[in-house]
């Protein structure tokens, strides 16, 4: 392993230890609330990025693009695990 690789590995371990130490200090209530809060923050960042890239977009178009990206992320997450199983009310 090169000196550069060793330094990178040391840095990764240091970041991991720091992350774990911080998490051990947080309460369960904080951690449970952080998931949706971080999601809302990431959605705001995504909307801002789309607005910067497409200044001509209306709010509705930006929201549509956000929904499109979320659908893509969900398809990737689900691809290896889920299969369609009909509709909940039995209707086509």
């Amino acid at each position, binding site marked *: 392993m090169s000196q550069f690789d060793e330094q990178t590995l040391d840095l990764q*371990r240091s970041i991991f*230890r720091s992350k774990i*130490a*911080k998490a051990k200090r947080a309460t369960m209530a904080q951690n*449970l*609330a952080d998931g*949706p809060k*971080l999601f809302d923050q990431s959605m705001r960042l995504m909307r801002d990025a789309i607005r910067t890239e497409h200044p001509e977009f209306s709010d509705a178009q930006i929201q549509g693009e956000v929904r499109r990206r979320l659908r893509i992320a*969900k398809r990737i997450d689900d691809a290896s695990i889920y299969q369609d199983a009909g*509709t909940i009310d039995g209707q086509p």
Partner: protein
Amino acid sequence: MDSLEALGRVVTVLDDLGIEHMLVGAFSSNAYGVARATKDADFVVACDAGAVLRVADALGEEYRLDRQMQFETITNTVRNVITHVSTGFDIELFRLSDDPHHQERFRRRRRGMVGGLAQGVWIPTAEDVVVQKLRWHRDKDLGDIRNVIAVRSGELDWEYIRRWAGTHGTLELLEQMVASLPKLDFLDDD
């Protein structure tokens, strides 16, 4: 309404309808490990399809039920997705299956409070989070497992985890993950 409030509304509706439930997925690994953003809240619910429709009705127009169901092929559970329209936050309802580990996980669930919500939520134990995520073992699941093991080092019931991992054929993966963790002894002094 933000995503946390959208989640709280679902918990209230499930409680009001008398549907036993448990919050799993990233929320449960956040509870015991390192919090990360999650685009959905996964609930295990002990009810039938009719009750899921009643949940969707009770949530009202701010939520949209996807009538398409999905079958989860690893543990044989059925999923329905309800989206909170304005935030895009998904609520996934997994009906409690006959899977032996799912049954035991549901029996062992515990109540936890969520910062910012008045009501508590039911969550699995840390051990059951590790066991379930080992079964899925997607990249994000493996990251969550590492974090839960590291944060809860010294507190986990390893006999329980190894028993189920052995049953599910994920014991080798578990041992690889434990061996790959950096030494964290210094954290015991905190």
